[in-house]
């Protein structure tokens, strides 16, 4: 297993998340996809930390932990927004929520 394998895995994960965010209409699924992309980034942090010159400094896990914490908060806010949107529009379909356009 080399660094490249991890990076490719992270890239694939990122692309999956990205495609999900691009194509799905359900706001919740888009949130999932964003989380997947976030995790792809986290995987990169870990991989670069593990193969770095002095892994004992724990830069990677620190960043990752922070990112997960921020992501958790973000998901809480995002889900709350989704629920608020749902209450307002009676749907979470992103294509029908286009009042900004008018």
């Amino acid at each position, binding site marked *: 297993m080399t660094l490249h394998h991890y990076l490719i895995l992270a890239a694939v994960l990122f692309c999956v998340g990205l495609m999900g*965010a*691009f194509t799905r209409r359900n*706001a919740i699924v*888009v949130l999932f996809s964003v989380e997947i992309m976030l995790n792809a980034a986290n995987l990169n942090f870990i991989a670069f930390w593990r193969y770095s010159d002095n892994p004992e400094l724990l830069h990677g896990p620190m960043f990752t932990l922070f990112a997960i914490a921020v992501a958790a908060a973000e998901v809480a806010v995002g889900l709350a927004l989704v629920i608020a949107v749902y209450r307002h529009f009676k749907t979470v379909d*992103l294509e029908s929520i*286009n*009042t*900004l*356009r008018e």
Partner: protein
Amino acid sequence: MTTTTLALIPLLPLLAAILTCMLKDGRRAAGVAIAAMLASCGLALAAFNEAWGMAADVHTTFNIPWLTVGDTAIPLGFVLDPLNGAMLAMVTFIGLLIFIYSSGYMKDDQRMARFFCYLSLFAAGMLGLVLANSLLLLFMCWEIVGVASYLLISFWFHKPEAAAAGKKAFIITRIGDMGFLIGILLAFKTTGTLTLYDDGQGLLETLPTGMIWGVEVAAVISLLLFMGAVGKSGQLPLHVWLPDAMEGPTPVSALIHAATMVAAGVFLVARTIPLFEAGGTLPVVAWVGAITALVAAFIALGQYDLKRILAYSTVSQLGLMMVGLGVAGVSVGMFHLLTHAFFKALLFLGAGSIIHGCHEEQDIRKMGGLAKPMPVTTIAYLCGTLALVAFPFTSGFFSKDEILAGAWATNQPVFWIAAAASLLTAVYMTRQCIYVFPGTHRGAHTPHESPCIMTVPLVILALFALGLGGLVKDSVLANLPGEAAQHETIVIVVSIAVALGGIALGWLIYRGRALGQENDPLAVTPLERKLWFDELYAATVGRLWSLAIIIAEQLNELLHFIRDLLVTLANKIGTGFAVGGDRKLIDKLAFDGMCNQLRSAGHAVTRPQHGFLPGYLRLIAVGAVALGVLVFWIK
């Protein structure tokens, strides 16, 4: 004489005309006009006094610059010499007497003030004409007197005949004036000046030379000027207006159509006689005058209208003046003009008095027996008659004698024609007097003598008519240019014979006739119809006129058509511009087009703002990738 004093002579009556046209009261207007005329007469007599001593070829001139175009200056100005000095004195003096007479004659007329306005305007024009030192100024004044004549002939415009007579006079003199105007233009073209006397530079001093259409320029110019004189002085064939002009009030006939305005034509020829001499056209003047004299005297034989007889007599006498100018020069023609002015004014004023006394009756068949109720008028009228028929030792005798002597010396056929005209003159005047004065009255109303204000001028004029000729003969002949001819015995014999013979002939024809009841032996159809001159004009000029009217109407139609065409075209062009330019180009293309462009541009810009979240995300991604590629590429 300074310029101002000289200019005042015509300006005073002009001022009076302006004043009187604002007045309503006829008597006050008459006062103003007579006062102005009196002052003018005084100045004119002073001018005459000064001019009379001058040599015949000395001319005092006053030129005032009037119009300057480039290098060409046209001055207007006055001239004073014996010729117009005498004319001035005559015009103002007779004018004054007639003004006074008019204030009596017109006193019952509603528009008396207007009458004096016109009369003053006429006097101003006439005096300006006499004084003018420029053909242009002369022509202007010539037209002013024409207008005044028109206004005065048709003064009683409610009478259709008077209105028609005014028009006729105006239009027929216009035929002559056209020639006059062309003559002026030709003179200006050839010499570059219209000033008559200008210290050796004037038109009459340099005299136009050269040829035009193979004829001497001077001959052409003089004949054209003579055309104007023919129109104004009622010479054949433009004489037809003058008898009709008798529709105007009688003082007008006396002043304008006997003494002054009609003499303007003779004066014009006398004034410009150097041109006639240079062009050799004086025989034409003499012949036209002689034929006019004879034909008019002939027509006068058959007329019944008191004033019309006098009118034809005037035409005839004007013809004799032309003969005088043509055969013997200025002095002889002008001498007859001056004497004629007095006795013809007298005859007309006498006729006015008779007409007034007979309650506006003008037909001599309805007169008769006027000698007793109107003694002053009768005697004055007979004096005028004697002078007109050239009874020995009246003023007409002296002046006509000079003409006949001149004609005998230079042009014998003209002499015999003039003698025949004189014979006829005596016949028709005798006929008229026999109709009017002796016997019993044939009219409906009892005749009465006219008031003093009318008879006093008559008496004054009668004295002049009898005595003037003998008194001033030598003085006139000496002071005016021209050589009087030697008096042959035959001339004197013929002259006296035609006068006395004519009177005797008239007496023989009309002696003991029941006048007004049986046919008049002389009033045969051709004469009564005035030798069909009016019909001739109706058939020629009238036809031409009708033709001109038709052509004018057609032209008018054509113009209307062209106008409509133009309007339609303009409409089309306008619509084209409105639709194509305004609506299509500016509105649709420029304005709406721009707006649409802006709006679609706006739409294009707002398209990314579609509110579709995944879309935004995609854009972000694309942006990020692009950024990544950029960074990678730069590296």
